């Protein structure tokens, strides 16, 4: 086993330990406000799984979003929670959140080891460890698997694309990589609307590259040969096909299945944003910059926003200087710019649709996870392209800062803010006790009413 492989395996092992440590720290988790309903719905033993996941009235508050793949994973999570509770080990962990996070790390390390040969192993490790400890990834409480699934899709799409047609010395990317990329592009829209956006961005980037590569001077300057063009056409076909499939699934196939299983047509009202949300730059900008800053220094409000803004300016400055020195790096710089612009557009739409996500107790959660997965790739891409020791050291320093902040987070002072889940966190030990002990009088215990209904439902389900 070579040294690089040992770093890879060590990083994966360290990630497993970190995930376990975070999970233990959550002490069994708490029953999220909305999860009290979802746990009951997914554990309805009188209905087959397909009937449940194609019923957006109960899986998504009638806010139909065609993300049935994530409901299937939620169904597995919810069944696992009831099964553990029936063994008197009640908890509210999302097992899929942990597995998906670990899969992201395994994929990052797999591709970093093979396709980023100039990156030092310690930097590759830091990318994954900072990702694992980021606040958007460490929430293992059962809620929804849509964002973790999209983060996994983002990891695959970014790294597999690099392997297939960005790395110049890799002449033959095997069919496995194509299958992985193609399947991910087609499945991402079924995981979340962010996943649909991800596939759309991939298709648009392929389109933009095809337009640029149409000009012979561009092809000659960037040495885009016939082989690369063939790959580009194939990737564009996959991307375009995935977007078309996602649209048809959302508009026709899933509604037909909902009609067949549950006898009604879903409401598109929640999806009906139009194009106006794209310009909600104040909300999207705040989301993106605040999360960037928070990732590194774990401070809130203006400090986090300013930190994110500074980092973005530094990153832009870095690429401007580098491209002026070596113009052949322009595609990597343009890809970074395009990804950041796409993230801003996505954040604009999300915060326009759901302004409550800008609350301090929600802002740094799983909404940012898919974007962070893309940022890990972009940072690795920057380091691989410029091949500079200074860049590696600066990046390592920043990622080390993020890791240190993760450890010191409880000691970093911040102004208090309202946590809308506090009541559910405070009462969860009682809920777990009521699920573990059938004789416990839950009716007179000071439980939120929805938690009481959950306990009653669990007890009824277990009696059957």
């Amino acid at each position: 086993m070579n040294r690089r492989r040992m770093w890879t395996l060590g990083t994966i092992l360290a990630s497993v330990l970190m995930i376990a440590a975070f999970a233990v720290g959550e002490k069994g988790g708490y029953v999220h406000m909305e999860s009290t309903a979802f746990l009951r719905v997914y554990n309805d033993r009188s209905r087959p799984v397909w009937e449940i996941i194609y019923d957006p009235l109960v899986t998504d508050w009638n806010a139909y979003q065609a993300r049935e793949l994530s409901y299937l994973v939620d169904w597995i999570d919810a069944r696992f929670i009831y099964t553990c509770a029936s063994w008197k080990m009640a908890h509210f962990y999302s097992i899929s959140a942990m597995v998906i996070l670990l899969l992201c790390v395994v994929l990052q390390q797999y591709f970093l080891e093979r396709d980023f040969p100039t990156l030092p192993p310690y930097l590759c490790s830091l990318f994954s460890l900072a990702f694992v400890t980021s606040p958007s990834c460490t929430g293992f409480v059962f809620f929804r698997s849509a964002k973790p699934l999209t983060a996994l899709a983002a990891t695959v799409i970014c790294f597999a694309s690099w392997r297939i047609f960005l790395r110049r010395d890799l002449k033959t990317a095997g069919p496995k990589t194509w299958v992985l990329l193609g399947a991910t592009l087609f499945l991402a829209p079924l995981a979340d609307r962010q996943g649909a956006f991800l596939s759309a961005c991939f298709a648009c980037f392929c389109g933009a590259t095809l337009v640029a590569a149409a000009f012979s001077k561009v092809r000659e300057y960037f040495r885009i040969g016939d082989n690369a063009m063939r790959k580009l056409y194939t990737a564009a076909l996959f991307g375009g096909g995935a977007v078309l499939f996602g649209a048809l699934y959302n508009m026709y196939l899933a509604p037909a299945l909902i009609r067949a299983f549950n006898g009604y047509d879903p409401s598109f009202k929640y999806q009906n944003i139009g194009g106006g949300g794209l310009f909600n730059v104040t909300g999207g900008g705040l989301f993106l910059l605040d999360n960037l800053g928070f990732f590194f220094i774990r401070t809130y409000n203006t400090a986090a926003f300013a930190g994110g803004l500074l980092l973005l300016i530094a990153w832009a400055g870095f690429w401007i200087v580098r491209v002026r020195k070596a113009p052949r790096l322009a595609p990597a710089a343009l890809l970074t710019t395009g990804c950041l612009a796409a993230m801003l557009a996505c954040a604009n739409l999300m915060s326009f649709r759901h302004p409550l996500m800008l609350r301090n107790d929600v802002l740094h959660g799983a909404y940012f996870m898919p974007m962070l997965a893309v940022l890990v790739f972009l940072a690795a891409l920057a380091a691989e392209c410029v091949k500079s020791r200074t860049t590696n050291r600066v990046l390592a320093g920043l990622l080390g800062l993020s890791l240190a902040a993760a450890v010191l987070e409880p000691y970093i002072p911040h102004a208090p803010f309202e946590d809308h889940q506090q009541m559910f966190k405070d009462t969860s030990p009682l809920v777990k006790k009521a699920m573990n002990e059938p004789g416990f009088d839950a009716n007179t215990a000071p439980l939120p009413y929805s938690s009481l209904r959950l306990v009653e439902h669990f007890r009824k389900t277990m009696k059957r």
Partner: protein
Amino acid sequence: MKTDLKSLLCGIALIAAVPLLMLWQSGNPATGTAPGWSEYNVHHVISILNEFLNKNQQPPMEDENQPTALDIFCDFTLDVDRNSTYTATWIDHVTALRGDCSDVRIARGRLRAAAGDREGMLREFEAARALARNDIERRHVEKIVRRFAK
């Protein structure tokens, strides 16, 4: 400079078609045919509840015949909610943000009434009485009790 027309046209077609497909999906005005639920979406619930939550420092009630935002919310959702799954969750949400108060206890009592738990309902209404801040609020609670505790 030579131009590869095939590449150019494919690229332009893709750049044009993808945003159009996305806009097509996000511009669908269909509200669905869910039985009794067509208006019961997140916006509707949130708009009613926001009205309640925005009055964080809500002054004591001045007219016992005027329904509170939570009364309206319960009237609406308990009518269409299967097993009061969602109503319970949102009432808890309100409690989490606003804290315990007479209005919340009335809503919890109504939830228990919907679930057939008469004893629990009376307990919640009793708590609502105790939390009422003036005579008008107490009369409002009595009115609700008369309506549901027959």
